[in-house]
């Protein structure tokens, strides 16, 4: 393919550009249409959907960059390799102003565009993107006025969920209604955990003494997994649970069931609070 290498003034730049263009033209549609639908975390909620779109855009944008560097390197290694044992010096090129300036502008524009796009999607379209925003969130999703609150309590090594607006019951199952904004209040009873509802596209650290708020707007019913994403000791990997997005009517009947099941325990619960300040358990493991 690269027989031009022996000629006096081979057009290496043109060849590299052509190879890169062809590979990019093949790979970008494959990324968007074949790989894209499989990129996480899916389309179950508005937030997850925004994250999936971000992942597709980033992959489709960064892969050509990867190709560019790989093509230039590989081409150079083939075209400029030294055969034979003799050690021969190359031309003493020390730099090329226009190339350096072009590269600087190219990477600069790419990076600034990425940052602007990332900030725009975070604040305007994704509205916080399902991440924990601390006690006073600034990026509120559409329809948050009619939100439902769920308190997520992390402790070694279990998640519990408290529904303060539906009669203040506490349960070890997580369910939320579809097409309604849910406001998670994530906090911890002992040490730092991280509430990761994978299919919902929600991740928020559970920090003792902090009310970490994250929003989610489910668009479809179905199952999702809940995990812990911050190392919390021996059984960190066991903080595993399945949650459900239900239709409004299913959710209401589930809630009343849970409330009835919890009725015996509900008077043992501490009064509802945004945060709890348990005394530290020394040397628990």
């Amino acid at each position, binding site marked *: 393919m690269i027989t031009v290498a022996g000629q006096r003034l081979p057009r290496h730049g043109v060849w590299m550009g052509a190879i890169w263009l062809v590979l990019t033209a093949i790979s970008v549609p494959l990324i968007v249409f074949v790989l894209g639908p499989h*990129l*996480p*975390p899916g389309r179950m909620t508005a*937030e997850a959907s*925004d*994250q999936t779109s*971000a*992942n597709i855009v*980033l992959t489709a944008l960064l892969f050509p960059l*990867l190709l560019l*560097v790989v093509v230039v390197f590989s081409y*150079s*290694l083939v075209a*400029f390799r*030294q055969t034979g044992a003799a*050690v*021969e*010096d*190359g*031309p*003493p090129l020390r*730099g090329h102003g226009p*190339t*350096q300036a072009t*590269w600087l502008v190219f*990477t600069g524009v790419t*990076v600034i565009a*990425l*940052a602007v796009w*990332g*900030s725009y999607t*975070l604040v305007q379209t*994704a509205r*916080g*993107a*399902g*991440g924990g*925003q601390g006690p006073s*969130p600034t990026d509120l999703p559409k329809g948050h006025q009619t939100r439902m609150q769920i308190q997520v309590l992390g402790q070694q090594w279990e998640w519990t969920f408290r529904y303060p607006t539906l009669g203040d019951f506490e349960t070890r199952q997580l369910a939320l209604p579809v097409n309604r904004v849910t406001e998670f209040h994530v906090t911890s009873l002992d*040490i*730092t955990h*991280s509430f990761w509802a994978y299919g919902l596209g929600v991740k*928020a*650290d559970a*920090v*003792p*003494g902090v009310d970490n708020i994250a929003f989610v707007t489910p668009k479809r019913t179905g199952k999702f*997994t809940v995990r*812990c994403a911050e*190392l919390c*000791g021996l059984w960190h*990997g066991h903080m595993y649970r399945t949650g459900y997005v239900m239709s409004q009517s299913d959710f209401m009947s589930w809630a009343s069931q849970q409330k009835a099941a919890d009725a015996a325990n509900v008077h043992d619960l501490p009064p509802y609070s945004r945060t709890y300040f*348990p*005394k*530290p*358990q*020394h*040397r*628990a*493991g």
Partner: protein
Amino acid sequence: MPVEATATDQRPLWQGVVGFNLLTGLLLGIGGFFLGAWIGGQIAVGHDYLLGTDQNDVGLFMGYLFGTIGWLAGLGFFNYPLGRMAGRPASLRHHEFGGVGRYFRLCTDHKVVGIQYFFGVGIFFFIGGLNAMLMRTELLRPTEHAWSAGNYITLVGLHGTMMIMMTSAFIVGPFANFLLPLMIGARRLAFPRIEALTFWLTPLAGLVLMSAIARGGFATGWTGYAPLADEARAGQDAYIYAFIIIGISLTLLGVNLLATVITMRAPGLTWSRLPIFVWAVLSTSILMALAAPVLVAAMLMSVMDRAANSGYYIASQGGSPYLYENLFWFFGHPEVYILALPGFGIVLEILPVFARKPLWGYRLAVAGMLGVTLLSFMVWQHHLFVSGMNSSLRPFYMFTTELISIPTGFIFLNGMGTLWRGRIRFTVPMLFALAFFFNFLIGGLSGVFLSDVPSDVTTHGSYFVMAHFHYTIMGGLVFAFFAATYYWLPKMLGVVLNERLARIHFWLMFIFFNLTFFPLFAAGFIGMPRRVSTYAPGLQGLNDFVSAFAFVLGFSMLIFLANLVYSLVFARIPAEENPWQSKGLEWQVPTPVPVMNFERIPVVNTTPYEYGVEGAPPVATLAPGAVAAAGS
């Protein structure tokens, strides 16, 4: 007191063993530990809040403190200051023997310290790698089978902590200590005794860290997040104390190298003629001197929380877990550039030699390194995007984090420009340097996902992060380390390394590194959190493949070890003075390097990259007649 520098290899064996050396350091260190633990126990008597737990943290910390003093006394670090106080004359290198013995004691020759670092951090690198093999064994099955949950999480913590602690000095330890004075035409580092101290603190930190195993391990990983660290068992004290020791060591190393580069360059070595590796060491040193003290401060507060029941990080006592997270990552993110920058320097030093061209875009490379140095202090909160930090700050940290890819991109342009129309020879160091670019490219681009907040909500805390930083640290730093090893070891040890074994090592390591870590991006995307011993059953196939590849990757390290032992102990083929026909100053001195490096301080004429330049002068005049020798 040991005898003066006249001693030779003919001394009887007992004289080599008795005296101020590693063995005495170990014995006094262990003795000091028990003395300190006893004193600490006496202090804690009667204080309920100190004895409210099933162990005595005061005793442990006092034990480690006294053990450190014993270790340093046994190695002879107090002889010189005490001798000066008693009126003895000042002397440099006053008890440095020839032979193998000097590698096991306090030695202020920068070349000896370089070799000590090479083998010292190398041993811990292999132990850390072994931990990774044991972890991959557990991950062969989705349920707990090989190790208990406590042992597994201790392995995770030991692997991470040991690798971070040791690889921080992985390149600046062996190669900067040995080569930097040669490259800048000096005879020593600015502070030779501090140089020896920085090394001897490193194995101490490793040994203290491993003592955690005897104390029930620790469950916090390498990050040691409070308040988990406050709850953890006694092994946590070992982690905290080891990090304090290594933090002090890194700070001192950074200050020492900074002072050396700034003040001890040979005449004629202007800033624009400085080898690019020296620029990399300079920027790394800035990071070490400024970031490591923050780690020490964070750890000291952890000590107070554990031993004296203070509440810096305890919410119920008025403290905040965020304080630890911010302090830790204010160190932690510059730290990852402490790991990356020396790699940039190594590959840009090696590429011109084997492309036979000057380094392309020298000023851009320097700007890139200094830009990374500056920006690395402004990005740390991207580790905390979902922690509950002030949400309106997130776009700012997204911006600074993505900004850092501009100076990093310079290094890639330097690489491409240097290869352009070169005469490329695929020697083993060159292969490792090229692999660095490939791996670091994937590592760097995957980092963009983590800097974008919507994408980071998915990937944070998952195997995606783990794959990302293994691509940058193992694919970057460790490949650069092996490039440097195959390139400079002939000069450092005076023997040729077997090339066939080296090539097998490279191809096995490169292929199986990528096979091991690339699938882990997918594991993270599918939803596998980091640091778990049990995972979703559906991920077993992926994990089994990764484990199998990881074992081959581990095996490739044994090939390197075999090569080292074979070449160093059995074959012992003397290395040429300049086997790569490099123009670098460090290659113009004899092999093995004489004790004083240069007969006279050389006068530098030009950059070390004058390949293909007609009538270029030699990089330096080694025996300048008219110019008087400067420096010590």
